[in-house]
């Protein structure tokens, strides 16, 4: 009775719903490998539950049955070793871990080997945001991918170690400065999934998140086309604002005067600023351009020299659009 009840609870806890939705233990399954990983997770969970219940049940039975009490002050005679039992127990343990190792190894081969026809996206991690560069040079803050097509990520970091983690895809790979690391996945369901940074990287570590947006395979091409050409279709101010949002500026620079890691852009253009060495400069096009390309050359007093360079990562027309956006933040225009 108790056993069947327990079995019932167990199956409910380790059941994987048909639709790939979230379970008690696991997030939804969003990639081709998620099913395999979850299968192994549940397999180990099953073994663990059986052994845990066995250990605790035996322990409880012994405690109740052999409890020291009136009439049972001393132990009953029983052997203090049994090599056959020990060897049997060892053999069972070895067998189980070999099986677990084998399944882990088997699915790991699939996880670590991208298919040859994968669509390649470059990933850069930096304190504390992500940027994803598409084959045509377009850069986005979120990762847009087509469903049902393998996507390979080639990743590196600008500063310290980060780790690219999408729980729904069961994919994680460190993003290491001075190295390129790779991972891949094939998304199965259109939708939006969280990207986390899993390797501790300082103040903004827990806010270093982004989304994976999975498009149906027909929608992805048109989306990329439209997204890539936004500077052509928008005013410089609007384009600059989009760049501000997607290229990582907003992690450290506010546009409402509020304090962040770097100076606010609000009413910054044309302002006189005191630098760390005491000299005074005026914020103009030249200073902004220099600060984007060589951020730590002239740091405003009171701020740390922590901004990574955008040399080679922002084109001239993009810097111009950003400058136009900063100029527009003069407090005179209504907030959009």
């Amino acid at each position, binding site marked *: 009775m108790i056993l069947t009840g327990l079995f019932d609870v167990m199956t409910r806890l380790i059941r994987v719903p048909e639709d790939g939705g979230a379970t008690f*233990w*696991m*997030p939804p399954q969003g990639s081709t490998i998620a099913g395999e990983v979850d299968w*192994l997770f549940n397999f180990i*969970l099953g*073994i*663990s539950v059986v*052994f*845990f219940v066995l*250990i*605790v049940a035996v*322990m409880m039975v*012994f*405690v109740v049955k*052999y*409890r*020291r009490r009136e009439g*049972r*002050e001393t*132990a009953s005679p*029983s052997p*203090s*070793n*049994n090599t056959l*039992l*020990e060897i049997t*127990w*060892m053999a069972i343990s070895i067998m189980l*871990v070999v099986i*677990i*190792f084998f399944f*882990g190894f088997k*699915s*790991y081969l*699939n*996880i670590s080997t991208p298919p040859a026809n994968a669509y390649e996206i470059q990933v850069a991690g930096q304190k504390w945001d992500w940027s994803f560069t598409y084959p045509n040079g377009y850069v986005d803050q979120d990762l847009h991918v087509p469903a049902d097509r393998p996507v390979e990520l080639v990743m590196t970091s600008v*500063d310290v*170690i980060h780790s690219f*983690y999408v*729980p*729904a895809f*069961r994919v*994680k790979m*460190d993003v*290491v*400065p*001075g*190295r390129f*690391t790779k991972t891949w996945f094939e998304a199965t369901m259109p939708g939006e999934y*969280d990207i*986390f940074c*899993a*390797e*501790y*990287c300082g*103040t*903004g*570590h*827990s806010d270093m998140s982004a989304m994976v947006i999975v498009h149906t395979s027909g929608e992805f091409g048109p989306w990329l086309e439209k997204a890539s050409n936004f500077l052509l279709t928008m005013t410089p101010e609007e384009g600059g604002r989009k760049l501000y949002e997607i290229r990582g500026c907003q992690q450290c620079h506010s546009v409402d005067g509020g304090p962040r890691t770097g100076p606010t852009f609000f009413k910054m253009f044309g302002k006189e600023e005191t630098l760390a060495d005491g000299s005074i400069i005026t914020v103009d096009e030249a200073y902004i351009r220099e600060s984007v390309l060589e951020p730590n050359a002239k740091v405003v007093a009171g701020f*740390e020299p922590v901004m990574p360079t955008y040399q080679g990562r922002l084109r001239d027309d993009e810097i111009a659009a950003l400058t136009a956006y900063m100029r527009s933040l003069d407090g005179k225009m209504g907030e959009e």
Partner: protein
Amino acid sequence: MAEGHSAVVTPMSEGASGDNYLTTGKGVLSWLFTLDHKRISVMYMVAILSSFLFGGMFALLVRTEMLTPGATIMTADTFNKMFTLHGVVMIFLFIIPGIPAALGNFVLPLMLGAKDVALPRLNLLGFWCWLTGATVCMVSIVVGAVDTGWTFYAPYSTTTGTAVVSMTLGALILGFSSILTGLNFIVTIHTMRPEGMTWFKMPLFVWSLYSTAIIQVLATPVLGITLLLLIAERTLGVGIFDPALGGDPVLYQHFFWFYSHPAVYIMILPAMGIISELVSVFSGKHIFGYKFIAWSSVAIAVFSFLGWGHHMFTSGQSPLVNVIFSALVFGVAIPSSLMVFNWLATMYKGAISLAAPMLYVLAFLFLFSIGGLTGLFLGALSTNIHLHDTYFAVAHFHYLMFGGTVIAFLGGIHYWWPKMFGRMYSEFWARISAALIFVGFNLTFFTLFVMGSHGMPRRYYNYLEVFKPYQQASTVGSYLLGLGFMIMAYYLAQSLLKGEKAPENPWGGASLEWETASPPISRNFEHEMIGLDPYDINALELSSDSGSYIRKDPSSILLTQAGGE
């Protein structure tokens, strides 16, 4: 060596006049410069439990911050410093020295029937190293708290603007304390065993301390080298780990885990030794499978050196290396599961007493099983990729380190407390506190498994709204834990002040530490001992008038030709 002893050996009349190691010699200096292993052990105990208090308060602050997403009581930077301090204090100041230096130091020579450890001056030097290292760490906390996490991963640790250099210097000095303790124990076990005590007649706690000592001596220098390289990089700008200087950050991880993977067995092995002692005594029965447990502890020490790469499956190291390490790291599961089997078998047909130390044994079996089994998820490659650096790993680690080591440490404290201080404690409050700790612990950390497998990364200040109920349950659990420890502090303090006087052997243990007064005299034993089977529980019986277990044949334990010395 003999001279080392003479400094603390007191006249023969000591035992008769009721003096013991606590009362022989007065004043602070008689403690700070003592060569008596028992006094050094008590100083370690005070120091280590103070560290535990600090580490625990940092943990409670971290848990309180996690009550809500975003800011609750502190900024992100403060939070990062808090979990770093929690980790550094708990790992380097508390749990690595914990059982060997505080309990092992006291019990090991007594278990060998010896007057002291083989190298008492080295023992004192080890304590001073600990104090110096701990002071350096505390100073770095005051002048500029470190925010790297206890792992000090480069290049974050080589570039952050906090006091990493002094903190790592502190950890380096603490490492020397650990090496000295290990070295001393190895020499002691090789040279100071009494007549009759062959290797396979040593108590299993001694076996576990021996295995631990081997790891301490062989692995800790690598940590020292790593931390020195880190300091060299930060102060001299030598490119070793930071790619900006031409270094390799993954190299740091190899170095770090080459020490820190064995280090988790420095933490757990002595705990396993305590459980072996306790489960036999409180089952009133000989330990089951003595040789298998003894060899298992050695096997764990060997395997501990082969598993470091399993912390790095997502680091970018080659998939082939990952596969090899995954295979190797499973090796440690075999001796560990064998121990659990033998502990259970020891209880079979026993006369199980549920005194406080045994409650900790039961809690240990429950929690250690969960900790060990969840290790299977992290050893397997594909599940590791998903679970690495999430709360799942944090929960697994705490189930082994707290549910395993700390619980066994508490069991050991409750077991040897009457011997150490000659006083009993309130059994009633001990049970209440053990129950609170058990419930609080599970509430705090089981919730972390569920969050972790859902993808909640560790060391996160902010988190998704869906995790809020789990986070809050966990925080409530941590408060229960804190309450359990407050009760423990209360009844142990009360025991010291006005506890009932403890008999020589309140539990019926057959190992040699129970053959002397509680608390022991300075030179430990009145007579020279011989080593008999330390688990021959049947050789003792409860004496109804003294409340102490005594040997049915009192002369059996004495070395006959030198009986009266």
